[in-house]
């Protein structure tokens, strides 16, 4: 039976929220439809819909005159009705929800597992990801604009007044310069809300200036966030001075504390580490470079968008800020490989997959060329012990080859589409080759390991005949 969910809310939160909820509940009961309704009224949120509820739902009815946090319903069919309609004519609303096309497509499924993951993030990881996700647009813009300046020649920007120089100013001088401050600022923002932003930005700027790079930025962000949060929650002032806290005490106190720590304590050692890391990466002999590519690649496929994947990804993105582009290439190749490999597997050996899986394979292909590793999750979830090792081997191959071929990538995202932007990828044909080999390895391994669809219809009929005979 299709399960229907609803959310009701009104500004005063005394009457309509609950009448609409009751009315919908009554109508659902009369129709025998499994139903749950969340009320957002004066008492607060009651009977809150869980991620699991949303996942199981056929459609969600929203009867609200205020915000109901709709973001969590992404990928689901949402029916909007007015509160009056819900109260007066709930059966119609339920019918509409029952008849609505459920968006249970493959892409919706992937979208959903992404949602679940970000909902499940907490603490350290959540703060870090808030910082990283706000930094990424700057890396994309900066990296690609710098790549565009290379169209005019690799050193064309050195001549002042040219378009190449302007592009370098925009990409390198501005967008890249903002990367680490924004990373640190939004880590702090995630911890302490608005009061964290200013100290975080300043700490990040210092990290960027003293060469401690993204590592220093991450540390600065956490210090600033917890410093601001500490002052916000713990420092008690007389009531009449309370108003000064957000405008004076927190910005001054948290920024000074973070700044002094960055300058006198953290900046230098972390700058050494970053310098050492840069030197080590630059001086890697081929063997070690391939090893790094293998490890990053396997990490990308291990949990497809989970913490391990994001750790590898963050590492590579952070290095872009220090003008090291090779790990990024390995990471993106390895991240594209899993869904692409699955798509190829469904083509190579269609008999081992159900009709739905073959359809899903096409969607996975599209997600793969867009560098959405999560596109492999539904397959991996269905058969983890065969699929995940195959994905890891294929991705490690792609990552290792990308390092071996000495490919470099200026942008942290974009999938196959960045290959067409001039100079965004160095050794672009070898790069495509690394991805192609990686996906082939994944596909072949999956085809070899997979047993095939459990019960084929023809077999069942055959068996019946046997029994009858």
């Amino acid at each position: 039976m299709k399960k229907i969910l609803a959310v009701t809310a009104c500004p005063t939160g005394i009457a309509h929220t609950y009448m609409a909820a009751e009315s919908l509940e009554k109508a659902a009961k009369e129709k025998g439809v499994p139903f749950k309704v969340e009320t957002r009224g004066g008492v607060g949120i009651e009977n809150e819909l869980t991620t699991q509820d949303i996942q199981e739902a056929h459609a969600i009815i929203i009867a609200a005159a205020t915000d109901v946090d709709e973001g969590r319903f992404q990928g689901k069919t949402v029916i909007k009705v007015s509160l009056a309609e819900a109260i007066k004519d709930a059966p119609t609303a339920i019918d509409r929800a029952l008849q609505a096309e459920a968006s249970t497509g493959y892409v919706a499924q992937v979208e959903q597992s992404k949602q679940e993951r970000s909902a499940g993030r907490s603490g350290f990881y959540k703060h870090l990801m808030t910082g990283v996700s706000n930094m990424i647009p700057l890396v994309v813009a900066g990296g690609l604009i710098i790549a565009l300046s290379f169209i005019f020649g690799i050193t064309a920007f050195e001549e002042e007044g040219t378009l190449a120089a302007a592009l370098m100013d925009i990409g390198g001088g501005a967008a890249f310069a903002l990367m680490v401050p924004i990373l640190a600022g939004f880590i702090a923002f995630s911890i302490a809300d608005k009061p964290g932003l200013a100290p975080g930005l300043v700490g990040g700027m210092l990290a960027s200036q003293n060469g401690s790079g993204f590592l220093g930025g991450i540390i600065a962000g956490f210090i600033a966030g917890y410093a601001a949060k500490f002052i916000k929650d713990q420092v008690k002032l007389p009531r009449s001075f309370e108003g000064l806290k957000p405008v004076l005490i927190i910005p001054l106190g948290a920024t000074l504390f973070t700044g002094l720590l960055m300058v006198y304590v953290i900046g230098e050692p972390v700058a050494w580490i970053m310098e050492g890391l840069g030197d080590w990466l630059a001086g890697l002999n081929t063997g070690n470079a391939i090893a790094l590519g293998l490890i990053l690649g396997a990490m990308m496929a291990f949990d497809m968008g989970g913490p391990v994947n994001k750790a590898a990804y963050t590492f590579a993105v952070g290095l872009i800020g220090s003008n090291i582009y090779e790990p990024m290439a390995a990471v993106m190749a390895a991240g594209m490989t899993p869904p692409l490999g699955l798509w190829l597997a469904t083509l190579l050996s269609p008999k081992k997959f159900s009709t739905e899986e073959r359809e899903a394979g096409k969607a996975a292909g599209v997600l793969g060329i867009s560098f959405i590793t999560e596109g492999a999750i539904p397959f991996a979830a269905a058969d983890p012990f065969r699929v995940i090792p195959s994905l890891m081997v294929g991705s490690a191959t792609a990552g290792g080859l990308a390092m071996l071929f000495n490919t470099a990538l200026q942008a942290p995202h974009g999938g196959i589409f960045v290959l067409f932007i001039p100079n965004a990828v160095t050794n672009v044909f070898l790069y495509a080759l690394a991805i192609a080999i990686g996906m082939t390895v994944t596909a072949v391994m999956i085809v070899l390991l997979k047993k095939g669809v459990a019960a084929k219809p023809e077999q069942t009929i055959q068996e019946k005949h046997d029994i009858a005979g």
Partner: protein
Amino acid sequence: MLLTSLLKENQILLDIETTSKTQCIERLAQHMVDSGDVVDIDQYVRDVLKREEEGSTGIGFAVAIPHGKSAGVQAPSLAYARLSAPIDWQSIDGEPVKHAFLIAVPLEQSGNEHLRILSNLSRKLIHEEFRAQLNQVKNAEELVELLEQ
């Protein structure tokens, strides 16, 4: 009982006559003043009528639930009027109103129990049997009993 702390006996008016929605609200509000729950009747009635302008609280089935969260309110309160002659309330189903529950809530929320009682009342109103029983109530005691079920 919690419910009776909201719906005091003097705030239950059975089979009264009023000519308009505003008059009905004012009359119920006056009883809330008498019991001390509403301290500024002008402010409170203004807030309730403002809410009515945003959208009628006539929820259909001859029931209206005018309500206001207002600075004129000291303590959460509930009043009920059953009208001997139904009046127009611009209800969503266009039918005149026979039952009016007036709800008063202070600006600063004063404990969730009261809000919960009011939300339970709202839920009950959706059910036909409950509304039928509302028509049968003979006195204040019976009403309280019905609401407490």
